[in-house]
């Protein structure tokens, strides 16, 4: 039966429902504690693989490339970064239009081999360039939370 016919005949009907399941994800608190303790002091700490030497910021406890545990091998990286790639968002993740376009990007801190994701502010969308130097803009009073990194901005 054609779609219109089915609709006209009232053959199908839809009911609404939601999947409201709450989760409690478990993660390595020792890693996160050390990382956010660094953020409170406006410092960035990552972990370095014993085998390949890759530095992960935020820290990881397993290097998937080497299949090795990274055990307490902390290194500090600079809060200056290079922009690896970016996008200018015109809609929120659920599709609602933003009042102003929002820039997000992936940044590589000096001394790190992985990148962090986050918002970039303080410049117009047309002025952003891959490879540009960025700095971390810290929250005025850091609290030892992920949101201590407010955003990234051009390093002047």
């Amino acid at each position: 039966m054609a779609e219109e016919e089915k609709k006209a005949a009232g053959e199908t009907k839809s009911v609404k429902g939601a999947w409201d399941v709450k989760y409690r994800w478990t993660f390595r608190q020792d890693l996160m504690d050390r990382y956010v303790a660094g953020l409170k002091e406006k410092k960035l700490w990552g972990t370095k693989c014993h085998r390949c030497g890759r530095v992960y910021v935020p820290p990881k406890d397993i290097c998937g490339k080497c299949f090795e545990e990274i055990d307490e091998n902390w290194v500090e990286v600079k809060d200056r970064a290079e922009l690896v790639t970016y996008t200018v968002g015109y809609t929120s993740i659920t599709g609602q239009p933003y009042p102003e376009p929002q820039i997000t990007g992936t940044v590589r801190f000096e001394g790190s081999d992985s990148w962090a994701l986050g918002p970039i502010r303080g410049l117009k969308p047309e002025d952003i360039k891959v490879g540009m130097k960025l700095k971390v803009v810290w929250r005025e009073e850091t609290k030892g939370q992920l949101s201590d990194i407010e955003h990234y901005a051009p390093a002047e």
Partner: protein
Amino acid sequence: MFERKVAIVGYAMSDQADRIEDTREGMIFDTVRAALLQAGITRDQIGTVVMCSNDFYDGHTISNAFTVEPAAAYAKDETKVEQDGMHALLYAAMRLASGNYDVALVVAHSKGSEFEAQVALSAQLDPTYDRQFGWFNDISMAAFQARAFLDKKKLPEEVLAQVAAKNFANARKNPKAKARDYSAAAEAIARSKPLFTPLREQTVYPVTDGCCVAVLAAEPKARKMKNKPIWIKGIGHWQEAYALSERDLTKMESAKKAAKRAYKMAGVTQPAAEIKVAELSEHFAHQELQLAEALGLCEGTSAAKNLEAGRFGLKGKLPINPSGGALSACALGTVGLVRAVEAAQQVLGEAGEHQVKGVKLALAHGQCGPAAQNNVVAVFGK
């Protein structure tokens, strides 16, 4: 290498468009019935069934519990994958190659009209760092990849509209595609609603409803079926790290490695010359160009130049996505199996208005994960 050769011996697909008034079970039942009829088999000849869907898309956990019956899997060996229909085809082929079964049914489906796709897809993101601030989704993650690729290749954003324009023009010849009545003017596509630059509404997959079914058989059974067997000459699967931050987004390393395995198994040494048509799961326009390069389908090294020269067009030397591809219709998780069935139809000469002439070897690709983390490539031939 498979112990026994495996072929596609039958297929069917529903419209890959909005089927709001259909039940999921009805859509699956109709498509599976059509595939059995097309293959000339009855339900009792099916040994094993591999389905593809996703609990988040279906709104049920272990959602195949509900689809076993319309998928002809009642009281049979049945399982489900949550990646892509191409993964379901791979696992079904392995079940046949093992010698345990002779005939398998591969069933992929989803109804995008029934759920908020971007909300469900955001559940694939890491909950600790990437999800909690609400900055990222499936589209913005791919936008990072698109920007990195365009920048590396020094390409303008307009090239993405040209990919979509080619695919929408092809879709006009495909009665199953949602984009069959879209305008194929690149200028209009380049002005469509910006989502996450450089991606726009018309350079991102349109979420649709749809079901696709393939009937597979292993030799010697495959040679005794009603239809001519279209052999899986080669198939490869590879994946890389979840974190975008640990990948080179300018390349598609896992797609390249998957293709390398498929080509080795198929004895393909010059893919750009030997493959006559390719159906790729370009969820986003830039991915078609990246895949063409990673899969070795270009003359030279620039997919954009091949596109501009018309080499990937319906009348080109190596048409890519004559069906219109994923930009023209995208039932999530069904896309890769649609590509495989399209490739088989091309080899059989049954692709209808978008048939490419003289296809001996056809390639199909499926993917899943943020910014195409995980890829399957298969080569089909007589």
